[in-house]
């Protein structure tokens, strides 16, 4: 039980996917123009990640090591097809908003990364906890970033007007430049806070998180 909680909770802060591991950047930047889109994308990823971790973990003794990446991709792709069909049936406006980023969940590093780094080595229940935690962490980050950009760009959060008197929306925040800049600034702030905490404990300051491709199964290379 303790172990289960540990695996679940690490995705919520310690290894928070887009901020601490810098993985799966495309949806993080692309669909966070509103809080709603961020939340919708996050939920789709939670579904795929939890189930793909479960399936990979159940099949981990059958899958030969040499073709494991191909097998992970097939598992992820089948789940993404299921998500696409479900979204077309029950959340069509959201499906249209997210566009090609729904099928592109297949190539999101987080899915393959967790399959390779965790699910292929651990029993099903733990893998599900890991996938659920990572997925919820991803959702949290996307919703937060979406709410921030929506607020600065349009003065609304979740489509509700919260602008105060004299507020001037910065239109660029909901477009591509705003996505890059706001993620960069957030990463810098998180590193700064971390460094203040480290200084208090008498440790040396560290650089911000680097793009962690080593944990991304698809590459299999450390030098990317």
């Amino acid at each position: 039980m303790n172990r289960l909680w540990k695996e679940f909770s690490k995705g919520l802060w310690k290894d928070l996917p887009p901020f601490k591991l810098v993985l799966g950047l495309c949806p993080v930047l692309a669909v966070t123009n509103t809080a709603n889109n961020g939340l919708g994308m996050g939920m789709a990823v939670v579904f795929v990640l939890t189930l793909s971790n479960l399936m990979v973990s159940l099949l981990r003794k059958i899958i030969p090591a040499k073709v494991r990446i191909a097998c992970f991709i097939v598992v992820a792709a089948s789940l993404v097809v299921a998500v696409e069909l479900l979204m077309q049936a029950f959340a069509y406006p959201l499906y249209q908003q997210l566009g090609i980023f729904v099928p592109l969940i297949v190539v999101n590093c987080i899915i393959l990364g967790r399959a390779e780094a965790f699910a292929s080595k651990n029993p099903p229940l733990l893998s599900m906890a890991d996938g659920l935690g990572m997925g919820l962490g991803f959702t949290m980050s996307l919703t937060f970033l979406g709410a921030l950009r929506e607020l600065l760009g349009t003065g609304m959060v979740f489509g509700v007007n919260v602008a105060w008197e004299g507020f001037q929306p910065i239109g660029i925040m909901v477009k591509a430049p705003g996505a890059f800049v706001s993620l960069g600034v957030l990463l810098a702030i998180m590193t700064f806070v971390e460094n203040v905490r480290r200084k208090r404990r008498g440790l040396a300051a560290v650089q911000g998180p680097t793009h962690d491709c080593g944990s991304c199964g698809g590459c299999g290379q450390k030098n990317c």
Partner: protein
Amino acid sequence: MQEYFLLFIGAMFVNNIVLAQYLGNCPFIGTSKETSVAVGMGGAVVFVAVMAAAITWLVQEFVLAPFGLGFLQTLAFILVIASLVQFVEMFLKKMVPPLYKSLGIFLPLITTNCAVMGIALICQREEFGFFKTVMFSLASGLGFMLALVLLAGIRERLSVRRLPIAMRGTPIGLIMAGLMSLAFFAFQGMI
């Protein structure tokens, strides 16, 4: 002719695949620390994106559409791209060793590069013909390479500057990408 020219310019500059369409960001941030690496990665993406878009177009037209299997598009495309990358790697190793030397180590990374699959999907959604698909994917790949090499140049310069420690590495890379994307906005006046 003019139509194709506009498509080319539009895909390369105006709707740049990284800076305006948010595709392929992981390699964009991950491999932009040195110019030489950026050129290799960019070349590999151009090469694979064109082949992948052409082959997925054929698969969609002659396999998925006639048999009514459109819902399997995602699954079919990723399998085609993954096996294509493997095949290209083996082919280059055997037949064109010099090219393999310069692009080889980047090829395995491309399977999970969403730019490649994204380009193929965009071509399907826009319902391009075969020739247009090839043109569009070539222009998008070149656009990716352009953005990647430019960012690598900037980051090489930045790496010898004194920055606040919290800004070094990925954060400043992302902010620079944002500024570049702002600059590319100017191309929207062109078409």
